């Protein structure tokens, strides 16, 4: 793991892609995330692991402010993307979400054609002038989503008619079509079979060339396979955050050890 080894050397001078500073999240009276402070690298896959209800998805949804859609959710603290606080009142969450793409647990293509699914983001952000340009954008997004060869002959067919794995790759293509810098993935493989999962994991590894990827997963094997950094959450706390190799071979915190060896969670 090349990235893991070089990350230790220049921690101080590094500019982090995402930085969380004392982030607290409340759902009504429920304190879901407690004082999380962490920095996430660019062009790296970071995995969030932890038992159900530990707050890893909640924290992920803070990074593109999807928690804004939940009326009872309150977010405190700072999250910086490229040094800018995304919870600053001047920040438009709509602009933010164009830069921080998201892929959900269950594939959720729009009930529209494959083409329209991918073209929607670029269209509303005015990223393509004219039809030809839009077609180029869609094609390149579908290629990056590793699904172009499978759907190039049936772009007019509904996206909901694809298989689960194809739908999820379509959603990834849709997310990368707006040229985001960060890609958030909330258990993207939990609804997929092992073959589709392997395809998605391969894709995640390719996406790392261009994006900073944060992935929430329930599968520790998956975290070990795809990520360079791993963060372990437990009961709303960020218990341990380190190189993936380090977490799985030599965890510092006893709770991390208990979880990865299967004693809690």
């Amino acid at each position, binding site marked *: 793991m090349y990235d893991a080894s070089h990350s230790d050397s220049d921690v101080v001078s590094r500019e982090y892609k995402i930085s969380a500073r004392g982030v607290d999240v409340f759902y009504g009276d429920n304190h879901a995330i407690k004082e999380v402070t962490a920095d996430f690298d660019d062009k790296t896959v970071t995995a969030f692991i932890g038992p159900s209800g530990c707050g890893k998805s909640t924290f992920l949804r803070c990074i*593109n402010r*999807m928690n804004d*859609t939940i*009326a009872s959710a309150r977010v405190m603290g700072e999250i910086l993307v490229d040094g800018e606080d995304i919870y600053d009142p001047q920040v438009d969450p*709509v*602009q933010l*979400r*164009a830069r921080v*793409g*998201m892929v*959900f647990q*269950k594939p*959720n*293509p*729009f*009930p*529209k054609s494959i083409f329209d699914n991918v073209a*929607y*983001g670029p269209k*509303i*952000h005015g990223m393509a002038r004219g039809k030809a340009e839009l077609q180029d954008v869609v094609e390149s997004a579908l290629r990056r989503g590793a699904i172009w060869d499978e759907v190039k002959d049936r772009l007019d067919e*509904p996206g*909901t*008619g694809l298989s689960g794995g194809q739908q999820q790759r379509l*959603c990834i293509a*849709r*997310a990368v*079509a*707006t040229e985001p810098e960060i890609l958030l993935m909330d258990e993207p493989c939990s609804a997929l079979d092992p073959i589709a999962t392997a395809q998605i994991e391969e894709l995640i590894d390719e996406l790392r060339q261009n994006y900073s990827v944060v992935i929430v997963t329930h599968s520790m094997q998956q975290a070990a396979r795809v990520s360079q950094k791993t963060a372990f959450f437990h009961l709303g706390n960020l218990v341990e955050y380190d190189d993936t190799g380090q977490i799985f071979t030599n965890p510092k915190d006893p709770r991390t050890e208990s979880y990865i060896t299967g004693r809690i969670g």
Partner: protein
Amino acid sequence: MTNNGMPQDLPIPARSLKSTNAHSRRRLRAEKCFRALGVSAMVTALLFLLLLVMSIVSNGLPAFKRTIMSVDFVLSQEQFEEAEAALLKTGVYSDFFTQSLVETIQALDIPIEVDQGTINRLLGKVGSILREHYRSNTDQLGQAVTFEIPMASRVDRYYKGTLSREGISSNNRFIRASDLDLADTLREAGLIRQTFNWQFLTGVDSSVDNPGGAGIGASVLGSFFMMLVVLVLSLPIGVAASIYLEEFAAKNWLTDFIEVNISNLAAVPSIVFGILGLAVFIQFMHLPQSAPLVGGLVLTLMTLPTIIISTRASLKAVPPSIRDAALAVGASKMQAVFHHVLPLAMPGILTGTIIGLAQALGETAPLLLIGMVGFVARYPDTILAGFEGPNSAIPAQIFNWASRSDAIFAEKAWGGIIILLLFLMSMNIVAVLLRRRFERRW
């Protein structure tokens, strides 16, 4: 299933799956009873429906038929001028026609004494039909023209079987039993026959002097203008209100309060809306009385809760994952709603709207209060007059006819019910088709 807690004296083979114990027998019996109840409820409902449909059809179909006399008639130029110069013009036309008819009948070698009085009692309004025809077709003067003159409503009812000879008293000034002998003879001679009654569909209401000529056309037009107002107002207002409440408004006690009250409004009796319309639209805002515009406004108030409730339900039914998907690619809240949620909710919204409109179409009580139940003897002249001129509506017209004394209006009322039901049925079919069409897309 365990035997724990079972009485000890039960036979041991209760463990076999094939044997039943008292408990499961009771359960099976309860289920059978419930099924039987359900079936009997269905049968009862179907029987009542059948009874309803049969009585409507058998009572209403006669309204779509009428008895006419088909006869050739020649009016000369001199007769035309004489009639136009007279004081009672239609009377003169009528006399010319009767004279000619008497000659025609005598030419047929019919052994019956024919006098003008008999013919006057048998025929409907001849004079005005002739005058209207010749005034706009002066070139046909002097030529033979075949007229189809509607028979008097009593003759019409005699051939429809709702009036018997025995039912005619000797001092009836509208018809005598002997008149019907002539009618029967003319019928055998082919002069009198029954045809489809277009007049019922296209005509306007008429009073006792021509009860058979009453039609539902003007009221259909009144209902049409009213529905136009309802559609144009209630669909955008209702959908906008539900989108705001469902997608944008903060969830707090105020929106809860509004939601409860909208649900309550849907259950408010329509006559309450009627008196509200009378007070607000007519007495306070001074909008014209009896106008489809006001009727439409009142029915809009009544329809809005229906539309809002069904729209909110169909918005709620759109999976939240679609909203998340749209928001995650950087759509604004409004873009997410209008590009993705609304199209998916469309079938439900349309169905709710059409059901609401159908309800409004059949509503009578509020119309009584705003005066849309009057006697409307002509069509509106302009589109504007269609909205603000006095008019009736289909259900109000039916109510009106049902309360008249002349028996021919009873069949008109039943016929009106058939028209109303046809409209409602076609609206429901449109709702079903729209729903199918929009849902089948993916």
